[in-house]
């Protein structure tokens, strides 16, 4: 059950990551994709007779990574918002500003 829901969460959020243009939504989608993997790992840990500690260690480490990645992503979104006034990625082709960009 947990196994399936983990994979389902991962897949749904991967879809959300692609379809939503707003960056905060994208960040949340990525975050929840990570949670999907963590659910899967905890499910794997429970499968035997006794609980396997290794996946738990992986999940804990993964949470630390996810927190820092999210923090950094949000910081970049804020900077982008400050610079452009909105929180969307420019479409292909709009990337090059007339002044030649950052070089």
């Amino acid at each position, binding site marked *: 059950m947990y196994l399936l829901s983990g994979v389902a969460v991962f897949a749904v959020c991967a879809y959300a990551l692609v379809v939503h243009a707003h960056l905060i939504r994208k960040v949340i989608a990525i975050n929840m994709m990570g949670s999907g993997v963590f659910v899967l790992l905890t499910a794997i840990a429970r499968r035997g007779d006794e609980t396997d500690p290794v996946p738990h260690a992986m999940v804990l480490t993964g949470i630390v990574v996810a927190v820092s990645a999210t923090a950094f992503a949000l910081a*970049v979104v804020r900077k982008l918002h400050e610079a452009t006034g909105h929180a969307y990625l420019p479409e292909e082709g709009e*990337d090059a500003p007339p002044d030649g960009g950052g070089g």
Partner: protein
Amino acid sequence: MASVFENTNWMLAPILVPLAAATVAFLLMGIRGEARRNAQNAVGLAAALGVALSALALWAMVSGGGPVRYELGGWEAPLGINLYADGLSVFMLITTAIVGGAGSVYALGYFSGREGEDARRREDLQDETGSFWPLWMFLWASMNGMFLAADAFNLYITLEILGLSAAALITLGGTRMAFSAGMRYLMVSLLGSLAYLLGVALLYGSFGALDLATLGEAASPIPPVWAALALISLGMALKTGLFPLHFWMPAAYTSAPSAASAILAGLVGKASFYLLLRVWFDVFGGSAPPEYAGQIPGVLGAVAIVWGAVMAMRQTRIKTLLAYSSVSQMGYLFLLFALVSGAAPERSFEAWGGGVYLVLAHACAKAAMFMAAGVVIYSVGHDEIPRLRGIFQKLPISVATFAVGGITMMGLPTSGGFTAKYLLFTASVGTGQWWYGLVVLAGSILAALYLLRFLNPALIQVPTAKVYRDAPQIMSGTAFVLAIFSVFLGLMSAPLFELLSVGAPFPSGTMGGS
């Protein structure tokens, strides 16, 4: 001295040295002005030297005594963290030592601008807080950690640190474009890492192991394994920028400061490729992926070679031209998956070695060319090809760097690119897949064409754009030396292939250094 090299504690040095340097450089950010810059430069150079020395020590150790395994703190797998070095690991460490060392030296000049100078001189005013060194050192530590990691989960950790620090380096420019390129890279990178982690979770669920060697023994062709292989390959192809997943690459490489572009294009894409090599051949090699599995990356690689080159020809800025050229050159790397799974196993080492050798050759040449582009931008203020006619008269060394680096891109003899592409070509003919050989040749011709798009206007004798200041000699000099080095790589291949054959997934057979 021999006894010193026996000590396996050396294996920690390539990771710990940049990690310590990153921490020190980070703390130094508290100091203001000139003192901080000097102190950070010193720390960075010391770390570059330390990585180079430890890579050499590991080279001596691995080629003398075969693959080495090191248990961190004496804890055995599966609970402890193990490090493992074979020929491929050390080869990659040497690549980072060379290209990263050159990148560090280049950065000395690159970030030497004084605050408050002419506002047009955008290129060197991008690191007012001194963030480059800590980020670059974290990046370096994560790459070296990846090359030495022995288990799948530590590969994930290093992959994430790599992605985060690389994304931060891209945004260093501080422009609108840099932030959007960095954000896009961050998304791609996190998506790739999570796909990898899901693959690892499936592997652990199937075999209860994370250690690469244990997994390699246990792996058997069952459905979860194919899902894991597909997820890991997809994630890594995304991060390496394999066609059609390269969409983030041009913007990222273009908007990063040139010192960072050189490192990103030269090394970061290669790190995820290394991971793919490890997983395909060390983990799934024993359970033999079906012949056609390798054709998927192979065909995509072939398309990437042609498409990247055609796109490169259409660019009007040097850095986007180079970025699309990277798309094309990355395609070559993925050819090896098709060639290795071919009908002639005795050719496998040729294909594998050729691909891996191209990693080094391309890293040197492309990094050198991005550095040269940085010099042009530093001196002229832009990198738009139509406005750079006749620039050779003003910046001869940088244009020469382009030409020399181009020798490797085109795969002309004596260059590292020649050795690598020759091996890929013979392997494709030897395995009866001659169409890949044709793509290899076509890619070289197309490379010549897109490089001439810049070199031709640059070399003509016309009144040229005004150079409003000279770039530090150390920038153009480093780029030129690195480009020259890439040309002579073809002559130095014998010892490097000997190194690669240590612990290689394929018997090296009768192949000499060519």
